[in-house]
């Protein structure tokens, strides 16, 4: 497998070769990387392939996940708000973490994945199902874990230049710079990205061909990472991520007047991480996260609002690997958050403290057992206790059988609680509480020239006290009034085959069957499906490499989606199948200089489709990537 990975990485753009070579870790200081493996052994986890991440490093995580991940992205058009929906839940029930820090806004409960360029992260892992024992509030349908690479030392100087141009005025310029000595490692990356998104589409509402206007985006950002390795047992890291985003918000296709609205998001994300190991059995991982997000929205007519959110997160985890078969992790988290908004009476604040314990036992060399629990106190009030039980039975060397039961919750957002004006928040809201159950299998075969992993999971989620905004007279307020049931089946297949030293094929496929409803189901297929939740959804990526050339094809299928809560057929979104192809070639100039080029043709069959009612998407379009790498 390793041979394949290396090959894969060489076939692809840029710096992935570094990532691999640099993964010579401090052996005793690698807590986070294995946290899921050890304490979530029954969970279905999906790691986005590094070559797919590299191939899409001029795109956002939203686009990447649509094409490769087992989840649903709900998007307001090409540059608009894009959030993840996992297992029939919503964005508020899907936690997004960067380096272990939750990035979901305390104001609205979501993170816009269009504001996360793939260029700024090195690892994207999706954990499906309730994960609140480990990740806290919001991890109900699943969790998206974003991370940067483990720091490397003794690598000297390296850099890479990433250039991308594409249809509809897309340009992306990125530079990564790395320098490391024996004790110090510095990585800086910055990007500038711009797109006009002025594609044309057939507008059903006006029955005419139109050009998308006011949909341009402009983003730039800088990520600085500094690591200091005092000795083999101690690693200190400081990271700072700044990004500024101007997102112009087009009118919906059903609206008559052109939009001039623009939203500016400017954020700082700071992180200090201290990792220390003792006696090779005990490891301490402490982090301090500082988040600052300013959002300004201006419709240039009568609304100009200003929001500011800040968080201070302190988390410490102490892990004890007692034996090969027993591991324990005790953690404590304190999160302070505050926000100001035009529609809050005052600055609002919240203090949350959580204590959590994760355990792993390997029994009879056959059964992984995880018991986890988390207890939080929110502004002095105890939140529901969140236990998890996970089992992974290694039946044979090719079959694993897994089962998991977990409780989860998500606390109300500041908007839910404190919004004031002609709509009113509800300070009496309680957290949404969920139960998730799942069972599945993993079939693996690992031969000399090929490897297959086939995983299937059946899941069931029930979330109570679901928060919904409804009007009472003319005043809108949220209430804990609904209940969500979601259940279904997920299948995934990964296959790699190497024919000879020069040729190699890989395949990655996901399929999800999701039933989700806010009305108690009386039949297996519920009467009413949650809006924007396709029952059938899947993606398939196949790539073929031959020496330094590669070619790939990606298919994404999104089934019918209802836009109305009552499932009115006439206003349902048609299902669509999108096909993208890519090809690339890597020029090795010499040992120090490499040039990788790739071309992507997206929506090659020029399919007309809407991602949301009245939000059309582009037809066939092109992107050209060039990565120059020096090391």
């Amino acid at each position, binding site marked *: 497998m390793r041979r394949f990975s290396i090959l894969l990485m060489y076939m692809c753009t840029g710096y992935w070769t570094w990532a691999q070579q640099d993964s010579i870790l401090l052996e005793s200081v690698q807590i986070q990387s294995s946290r899921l493996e050890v304490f979530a052994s029954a969970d279905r986890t999906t790691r986005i392939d590094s070559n797919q991440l590299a191939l899409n490093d001029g795109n956002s995580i939203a686009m990447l996940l649509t094409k490769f991940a087992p989840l649903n992205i709900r998007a307001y058009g090409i540059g608009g708000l894009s959030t993840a929906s996992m297992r029939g839940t919503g964005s508020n029930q899907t936690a997004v973490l960067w380096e272990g820090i939750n990035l979901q806004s305390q104001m609205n409960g979501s993170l816009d994945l269009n504001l996360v360029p793939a260029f700024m992260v090195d690892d994207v892992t999706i954990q499906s199902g309730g994960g609140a024992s480990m990740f806290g509030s919001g991890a109900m349908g699943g969790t998206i874990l974003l991370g940067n690479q483990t720091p490397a030392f003794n690598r000297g100087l390296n850099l890479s230049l990433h250039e991308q141009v594409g249809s509809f005025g897309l340009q992306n310029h990125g530079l990564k710079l790395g320098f490391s000595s024996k004790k110090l490692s510095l990585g800086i990356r910055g990007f500038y990205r711009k797109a006009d998104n002025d594609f044309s589409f057939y507008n059903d509402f006006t029955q005419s061909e139109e050009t998308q206007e006011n949909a341009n985006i402009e983003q730039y950002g800088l990520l600085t990472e500094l690591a200091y390795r005092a000795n083999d047992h101690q690693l200190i890291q400081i990271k700072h991520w700044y990004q500024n985003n101007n997102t112009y918000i087009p009118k919906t296709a059903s609206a008559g007047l052109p939009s001039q609205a623009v939203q500016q998001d400017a954020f700082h994300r700071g992180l200090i991480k201290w990792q220390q190991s003792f006696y090779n059995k005990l490891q301490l991982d402490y982090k301090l996260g500082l988040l600052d997000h300013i959002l300004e929205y201006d419709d240039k007519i009568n609304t100009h609002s200003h929001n500011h959110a800040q968080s201070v997160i302190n988390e410490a985890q102490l892990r004890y690997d007692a034996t090969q078969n027993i591991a324990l992790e005790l953690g404590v988290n304190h999160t302070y958050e505050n926000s100001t908004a035009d529609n809050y009476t005052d600055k609002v604040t919240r203090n949350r403290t959580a204590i959590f314990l994760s355990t792993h036992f390997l029994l009879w060399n056959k059964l992984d057992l995880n018991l986890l629990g988390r207890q939080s106190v929110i502004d002095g009030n105890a939140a529901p206790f969140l236990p998890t039980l996970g089992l992974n039975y290694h039946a044979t060397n090719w079959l694993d059988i897994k089962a998991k039961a977990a409780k989860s919750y998500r606390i109300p957002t500041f908007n839910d609680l404190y919004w004031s004006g*002609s709509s009113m928040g509800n300070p009496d809201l309680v957290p949404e509480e969920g139960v998730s159950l799942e069972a599945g299998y993993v079939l693996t075969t690992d031969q000399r020239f090929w490897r297959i992993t086939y995983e299937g999971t059946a899941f069931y989620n029930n979330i109570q006290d679901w928060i919904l905004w409804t009007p009472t007279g003319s005043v809108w307020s949220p209430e804990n009034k609904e209940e969500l049931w979601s259940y279904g089946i997920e299948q995934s297949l990964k296959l790699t085959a190497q024919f000879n030293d020069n040729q190699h094929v890989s395949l990655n496929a996901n399929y999800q069957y999701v039933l989700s409803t806010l009305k108690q189901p009386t039949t297996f297929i519920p009467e009413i499906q949650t809006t924007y939740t396709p029952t059938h959804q899947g993606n398939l990526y196949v790539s073929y490499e031959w020496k330094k050339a590669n070619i790939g094809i990606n298919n994404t299928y999104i089934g019918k989606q209802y836009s109305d809560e009552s499932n009115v057929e006439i206003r349902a979104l048609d299902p669509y199948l999108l096909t993208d192809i890519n090809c690339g070639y890597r020029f090795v100039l010499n040992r120090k200089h490499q040039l990788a080029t790739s071309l992507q043709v997206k929506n090659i069959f020029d399919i007309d489709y809407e991602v949301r009612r009245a939000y059309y998407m582009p037809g066939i379009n092109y992107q050209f990537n060039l990565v120059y790498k020096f090391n």
Partner: protein
Amino acid sequence: MKTNTIFNTLIRVSFIAVTVFFAACSSDDGIKFTPGQDGFFIVNEGGFGNGNASLSFYDKTSASVTNNLFESTTGKPLGDQAQSMTVYNDFGYIVVQNSAKIEVISTDDYSLVATISEGLPSPRYFLGINASKGYVSDWGADGSTGTIKVIDLTTNTVTKTISTGSGTNQLVLVGNHVFAANSGGWSNDNSVVVIDADTDEIIETITVGDNPSTLVVDEDNDVWTTGTGQTVYNTDWSVNTEESTPAFLAKIDHEDFEVTLKIDAPSVGMGPAGLKVDSNGSTLVFKYDGSIFSTDTETVSSTDDFTKIIETDFIYGLSIDASENHIILGISPDYTNPGSIKRYDITGSFIDEHTVGIGPNGIAY
């Protein structure tokens, strides 16, 4: 991160709910049309921004409702925020505010006759003047530059713009005088203007009270209006009771344009709103304090003369079916699920209920 957008939507929807409450049906001007004998259209406003406005038709013979009539007949979605529909000379003028257009359909076979989309940034209500002329009130792109657009009904184009005030809303025709209520739109106004329909000139601006939005004509041809008043918030979003003004009911003499009666609600935000008049032109029906009230045009002098006739949840649209003198309520539990219409006789006795589209705000026939 659409906090703002989403909340703006909420606010707009509630704003619309508060200020406008109900679409006019065309009972005021349906002189040439046999009023609603076969049935009536129901305008379903839809959720703001969701593009799911729709048209329903209630058929009296079968006592059943056909939903999504416009889209299934024309193959075209109706659009975003259908504000009102007026039937005039066998044509139905469906005003779709956020789509900035009027869809004109034939009332015989519901086929699409024309789409008026030029020069109507934010249209609200249509009023037929004569065979070749119609008026449309419009809030303007900024939501406050109120105008009346003059439509040539033979070509279905906007030919003239009359500047009227802020948030020009409902229109009624008395003789050759058009009364137009300036509801403020996104800002505030306090006037009803009178326009000479022959010359398209404003001949009078009547100050009635804050944000008049609805208009009806009684049996004596006098004009009644309700205004929403004005709600002013303190910086902490509590209501500033000193600067706020309550909603009101007022009567305007159609000859000398004097305000001859004005009844203020005892507190801010309770109505009256959504004013309608029965087929005799002698009983006013309106929303007040979360319920439906009526009062007599001859005797009313204070809120003590308001009589509660219907109490039910989620009232949105209020209309009168003049052919049978029935009250038709649009019931909207939220703006994402289908609503219904409830029919009552004029005394408030319940007749029946039918499921319609999202946010039913009025009827037309």
